[in-house]
């Protein structure tokens, strides 16, 4: 698992297939799927920028910026 950082995940909506892996893997439970089943940072205050979501995403749809 990555170290906390000041970076935050940025989601590429076109690349996200809505598989939900990031939702499952996020250690701080801050990602949800929206009404169209596209992942987004639902609770940004809980995110510590560890980058687990970005590492796990099979579609490479999440970058840490």
């Amino acid at each position: 698992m990555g170290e906390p950082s000041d970076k935050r995940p940025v989601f590429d909506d076109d690349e996200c297939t809505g598989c939900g892996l990031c939702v499952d893997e996020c250690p701080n439970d801050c990602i949800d799927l929206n009404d169209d089943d596209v992942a987004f940072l639902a609770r940004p205050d809980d995110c510590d920028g560890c980058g687990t979501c970005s590492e796990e995403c099979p579609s490479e749809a999440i970058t840490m910026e």
Partner: protein
Amino acid sequence: MISFDDYKDQEPAWCPGCGNFGIRNAFIDAMTGMGMEPHQLVIVSGIGQAAKFPHYVKCNAFNGLHGRALPVATGIRLANHRMHVIVMTGDGDCYGEGGNHFVHAMRRNVNVKLFVHDNQIYGLTKGQASPTSMEGMVTKAQPFGVMSEQFNPLAMAIALDCGFVARGFAGDRAHLAGLFVRAMEHEGFALVDILQPCVTFNKVNTYEWYRERVWKMDGEHDEGDRMEAFKMSLLWGERIPIGVIFRKRRPTYEERNPVISRAPLVEQAFDRSKLAAALAEFY
């Protein structure tokens, strides 16, 4: 206006990261984009992870025996061809157990849409080789590697003159949704073979493996040219084409069958005396 949310049903029990999510979401994108409502659809499935699909999407559904989705779908179309009938199946269910039905549904050209979740493994039963597993792939059930030739569904479909033959990739939701729309718009039997990573049991054909190889061939060849399509269907390895490979308008079974060509069976009057006459010879 129909929305994505209107199609959602039970929470899927697929592994997180499964390619089936991409397929499900692309399918709902396609249906909502076409303004199709759940009550207009019947989704038929057999057994497997793909066959759980109708549980996770609102629709009319029939979840039947292993490999036997196509006969049920054919029956539904014969009874009421106003319904849009879709078969959701996997590589094992359709090309293995249901291989015979796969062949003959294409010959009949019944207007059913066949969407095959092709993860090149039996996922539900925990990782045995399927007909599309690549030669040499080692599994718990194939310790010496797969010894059979890999089944090529697209080449077989083109050999049988199937009217719509396409391949999609579960990791490209928008492209796959476009293929679903085109398959739905085609008059006649349509096959979409969908490359689907199995994150738990197939460690060879991963998202990365597919991503390095797939290329969108839309517009790069003549979809109506059967020989060219056949050549395309044989490409597998460093480059794997996705998109519509072959398309041809053939008369459908529903159009050819004189009993239902005018009106669906369900809309026709039921003449009890004819049945009595037919049965009379047995007693």
